[in-house]
């Protein structure tokens, strides 16, 4: 048996972001306060890790076996040291992805990303259509994103457009695919919203109807065929409409590591807010290697030993790993339960109740709460 090793590190270098998307998976405010240690005199007075701390994490992650790094957030461009972190990741032989809104990318900065050795960019879009896109983002952003996409194309860095799909934009799936084609993207990801962070709070406003989901699936399948040699299309179904859970993370603590802006090391980016009773280790007080191998948080749901019924005796247990721990915690109140999306979960009724509400003829689309920046939460005392 080969020892467990992580393959990919998600580096959430800041939670600051110029956009306010109501489906953001970042923690909803206050839960971060408990998890975050005070600043140790670094250059980021808001508690964020320093440049040197991130460089050490990058080197330690590579030594642990990590081959890929995703720079994410928040908006990673909000940190001026992003370019030197990308360079450090390339020096450690990592494949580097940037997951960005594109806000703040001018010609010089796009070239600087290329010169730093960036391998790939995932540019988020909210819709194909400016007024709806800006309404969803809670900011004027769409037109500048279109311009940024052209600048990225000009540098030759591979470009992926990422759309989060939900009730308000799902009927424009076809036009969103057209936009990806027009902008010359190599890939387009059309991912139905997953309900964590702000998205969980805004579920009733974001969950599409069954009719919308079926129509969108047909459009995505047809576009896949039509654009087979041009744009690679990934369509992610909304899991609330599935009867079996997704194989979340390919199993807890198996392949992925996340480090959040204040240095908490997480098996999954949403775990710190979704599973409040699990204590996560911090990179300022314990090294990455021992957190990955030995910490309580990484071992709690590793393998199949932790599983309750119906997972424990289920033939699917090594295929879906019991689904998502965060979803179990958020919907059922206990992270060790079977993912409530599963048809055999005793909590499936909680998902169905929401589906019934959203699909009712009398349903009035709920309003949403926009994501707020957590700066006030992170501020040092």
């Amino acid at each position, binding site marked *: 048996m080969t020892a467990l*090793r992580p*393959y990919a590190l998600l580096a959430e270098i800041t939670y600051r972001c110029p956009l306010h998307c109501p489906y953001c998976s970042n923690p909803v405010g206050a839960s971060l306060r408990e998890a975050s240690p005070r600043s140790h005199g670094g250059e980021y007075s808001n508690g964020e890790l320093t440049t040197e701390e991130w460089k050490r994490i990058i080197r330690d992650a590579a030594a642990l076996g990590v081959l890929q790094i995703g720079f994410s957030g928040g908006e990673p461009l909000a940190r001026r040291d992003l370019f030197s972190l990308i360079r450090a990741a390339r020096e450690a032989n990592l*494949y580097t992805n940037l997951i960005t809104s594109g806000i703040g990318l001018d010609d010089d900065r796009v070239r600087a990303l290329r010169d730093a050795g960036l391998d*790939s960019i995932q540019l988020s879009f909210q819709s194909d259509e400016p007024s709806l896109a800006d309404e969803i983002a809670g900011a004027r952003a769409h037109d500048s994103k279109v311009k940024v996409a052209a600048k990225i194309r000009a540098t030759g860095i*591979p470009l992926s457009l990422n759309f989060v799909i939900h009730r308000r934009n799902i009927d424009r799936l076809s036009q969103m695919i057209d936009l990806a084609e027009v902008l010359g993207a*190599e*890939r387009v990801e059309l991912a139905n919203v997953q309900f964590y962070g702000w998205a969980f709070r805004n579920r009733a406003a974001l969950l599409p109807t069954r009719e919308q989901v079926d129509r969108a699936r047909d459009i995505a399948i047809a576009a896949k065929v039509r654009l087979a040699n041009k744009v690679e299309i990934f369509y992610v179904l909304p899991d609330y409409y599935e009867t079996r859970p997704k194989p979340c993370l390919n199993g807890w603590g198996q392949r992925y590591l996340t480090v959040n802006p204040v240095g908490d090391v997480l098996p999954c980016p949403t775990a710190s807010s979704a599973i409040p009773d699990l204590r996560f280790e911090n990179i300022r007080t314990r090294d990455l290697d021992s957190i990955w191998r030995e910490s309580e948080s990484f071992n709690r749901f590793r393998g199949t030993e932790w599983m309750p019924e119906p997972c424990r005796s289920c033939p699917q247990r090594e295929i879906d790993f019991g689904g998502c721990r965060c979803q179990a915690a958020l919907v059922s109140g206990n992270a060790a339960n079977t993912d409530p999306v599963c048809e055999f979960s005793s909590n499936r009724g909680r998902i169905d109740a929401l589906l019934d509400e959203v699909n009712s003829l009398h349903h009035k689309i709920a309003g949403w709460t926009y994501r707020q920046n957590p700066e006030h939460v992170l501020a040092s005392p």
Partner: protein
Amino acid sequence: MRATTISDLARPSLAKGVRLQVDSTTGKNVLLYPEGIVELNETAHDIVACCDGRTLGDIVCHLAEEYEVDGNALAADVRDTLSDLQQRRLIEFK
């Protein structure tokens, strides 16, 4: 493109954004791309390592010499491997 239809004159290369590198944990060769990692077996690695602007015909000749096997027999394997990688968008033909 079906494997048998790839011309001897086609020049395979790594697709945009794809990197060939050694996984230092296992010593195995891997292809890294935006959303993932593919581990290559030895033969697949030998083929991919030749995708540097040479034609498919030249690659087959080179490998046949290297392995001391008949080029005609090898050609089908090389085509299948490249076609599989092309379908996964890891290799493109020019």
